[in-house]
């Protein structure tokens, strides 16, 4: 395997991990605040649809992005109302959101575009194009460093860079600011925050708001960056993979980067080598494609060390003496 193949695989891993990373960080904010969110999948799907639909109708990818964020935020709000304000079961609310998004996107898609739930293919201004970083052309001929810079680091859509910047930003927010301290506290022991005179409800709403925005970016990237339009169920379980990555990452931002890279890499390898010939047996492409999902199951089954979730996760906060 030469250097160019490796760079190509890594390049594709970076693109494939981006929606996972955004969704994983989205889940991180929500779960760190004590609200479990299995509705990441649904929110991404909703965002992908609204982004693609608005981009197709207006021809502007930026309006599409805003619509994607709005669609995802709307579902976040539903989750918040159900699980924070009305203290409902967070898992059930999440499941409901997934079903709602799955049905609503296809229904609206058919109603608006009559293409069987798809949106028209996006072209030109309807998609996020690649950003060429400065000196990419100049450096290209330099061996090793050239292709790494020009192909791997340069040439992605803006949302990829946003996603990667979100990692240090999240770390800083979480561990260096007042907001982060309170956010981590409310997921561990909401009573400590409440007795300190800080509103548990408001903190949790802010957290799921951030979660909604990030899911919106993830969905918009799927439909307007990675793909060129919305197709039915296009998230393909990425929301759940992001949740698995979150557990793998032990609810830490740098861990999220590493975990989602692993998933992205597996997906990239499966895309590059549909089947691998090991001499005696040939690993079939179905197995390669299933790898990220198999890894998800292994992680969720708890084979990867002990991950301690935020202690108050999943519990609606009820005041007690």
């Amino acid at each position, binding site marked *: 395997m030469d250097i160019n193949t490796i760079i190509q695989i890594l390049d594709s891993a970076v693109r494939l991990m981006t929606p996972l990373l955004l969704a994983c960080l989205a889940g991180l904010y929500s779960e760190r605040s004590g609200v479990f969110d299995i509705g990441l999948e649904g929110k991404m799907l909703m965002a992908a649809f609204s982004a693609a639909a608005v981009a197709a109708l207006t021809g502007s990818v930026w309006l599409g992005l805003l619509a994607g964020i709005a669609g995802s935020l709307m579902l976040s709000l539903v989750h918040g109302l159900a699980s924070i304000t009305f203290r409902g079961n967070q898992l059930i609310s999440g499941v409901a959101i997934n079903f709602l998004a799955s049905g609503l996107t296809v229904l609206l898609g058919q109603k608006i575009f009559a293409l069987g739930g798809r949106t028209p293919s996006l072209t030109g201004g309807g998609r996020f194009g690649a950003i060429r970083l400065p000196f990419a052309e100049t450096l290209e001929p330099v061996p090793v460093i050239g292709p790494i810079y020009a192909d791997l680091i340069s040439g992605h859509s803006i949302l990829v860079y946003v996603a990667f910047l979100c990692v240090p930003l999240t770390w800083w927010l979480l561990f260096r600011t007042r907001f*982060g301290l309170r956010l981590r506290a409310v997921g561990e022991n909401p009573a400590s925050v409440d007795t300190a005179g800080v509103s548990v409800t408001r903190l949790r709403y802010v957290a799921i708001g951030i979660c909604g925005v990030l899911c919106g970016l993830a969905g918009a990237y799927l439909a307007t960056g990675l793909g060129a339009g919305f197709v039915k169920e296009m998230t393909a379980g990425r929301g759940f993979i992001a949740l698995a990555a979150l557990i793998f990452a032990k609810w830490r931002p740098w861990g999220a980067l590493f975990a989602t890279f692993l998933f992205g890499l597996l997906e990239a390898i499966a895309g590059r080598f549909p089947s691998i010939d090991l001499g005696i047996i040939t690993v079939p492409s179905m197995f390669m494609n299933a790898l990220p999902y198999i890894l998800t199951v292994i992680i969720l089954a708890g084979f990867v060390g002990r991950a301690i979730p935020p202690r108050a996760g999943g519990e609606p906060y009820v005041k007690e003496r």
Partner: protein
Amino acid sequence: MPAADTMGGGPVSAPHAAPPAIELSGISKSFGPVQANKDIDLTVAKGSIHGIIGENGAGKSTLMSILYGFYKPDRGEIRVNGRAIQITDSMTAIRAGIGMVFQHFKLVRNFTVLENIILGAEDGPMLRPSLARARTRLRELAEEYELQVDPDEVIEELSVGHQQRVEILKALYRQADILILDEPTGVLTPAEADHLFRILRGLRDEGKTIILITHKLREIMEITDTVSVMRRGEMVASVTTAETSPEELAELMVGRKVLMEVDKQPAAPGETVLSVRDLRLVDDEGVERIRGISFDIREGEIVGIAGVSGNGQTQLLELLGGFPEKGATVGGEVVMNGHSLDLTGTKSDAATRRARGIGHVPEDRQDEGLIMDFAAWENVAFGYHHAPEYGRGVFMDRAAIRRDAEAKIERFDVRPPNPDLAARNFSGGNQQKIVVAREVERNPDLLLIGQPTRGVDIGAIEFIHKRIVELRDAGKAVLLVSVELDEIMSLSDRILVMFDGLIMGERQAATTTPGELGLLMAGVTDTENARDEDGIPPEHSHPVDRPDEATPRPEGGH
């Protein structure tokens, strides 16, 4: 820095001239049909320690939660330092200078002390300056009030006594002038409690006002200046502590005369019922919980095990009761009535133990003693549901169980006497009566009873103690585990003190003193020549946390 901080120093010159720190008038609060507080008036003078005493469910905690902004009163007025204020949330209370130390600490367990201190009281959006300021302030507070604690230690590594200090520091950091403590000594050793009282006196002498909620009469008599008594949501009396007596307070609390001492004859022990030899237990994390203990219990005696919770008593009770922690490794021998008991394997379960004549009132009645959502009559049958009188063939004889339960509920004066009510809806004392009724009425040869009166009100304590003594007088053996030293001393015939998985020593209840037991509870065996501060246990409760420290040595042959 706000003025309140500099005002704290120096004794208050004329306390009677200043307006009272707290003045409540006509406070009422109901939760649905339950009236938790009825028309409460309360005045607490500035710079005093005021006790609020009452049985469980008397409404003490509700009243204080109203003061701290946790609940909104239905009616009534609150004045702080003479100013009428509406306390709508905890922030308002904190701003008014009220701090509260809850019974169950409100700390984030995986945060450091500093992070917990600044949470909610940060200086700005960035953490670093807040942490730095808190570190300096903490050092000042520690020196001023004997409140030393390592600012960088994580809360879960701290002993409960130190966690409580963090709670007090939290309030002081927020410049509280009025400090409310809800049952602060429940989790402390006598020496730790003494230390706490020294701190509280120091705070009072600095001009702070302290409200102490408790159900322990001894504490009220020891530390408070004035005391208020609550009963069934009403304030029944407010008196000067020096002018009252424990007997009078107890009568006010319960509404009738209460026998303070357990009335019992000297024990007449007979044959050995239970004999424990070199018992060991290592839990699934590799921590030695029980480290080779041996003792006997004879017919007709109550053996009390004293100790701060977390020193192996829980594991001992669970092991004898037939449900040791999962994954634990057990060694040693236990002989019951001449036959050895299986400590591991399928025959070491609670049902087999019951069949061998061991009754068990577990420490945690809500998790282990009852199924909270099941009706009282069902709970009375649990563990004995295979008893022949409860069954007809493979079916349960519901009518028979009900009849039996109704009779037990009546004999144990469970209130309300409604067998259909779910266990959850009884008060703590009545829940405990249900468990005790179930176990004691089976007339076991050996009764294991853990924390029999935790969270139980005085009237029910008297009743439960009487039943335990009756069982002893009927020639049965009782193993009593309790963290309440008063209870151990008044109820037991012999006392064993556990510390760090060992039995540190044995004392006769009639001849020992709380001081002597307190030292043993802290791992000090040389009780003759000990100093006062030796009674404070090491910060960490397990040997794995401090491998370099000398292992405590029990007395004599234990």
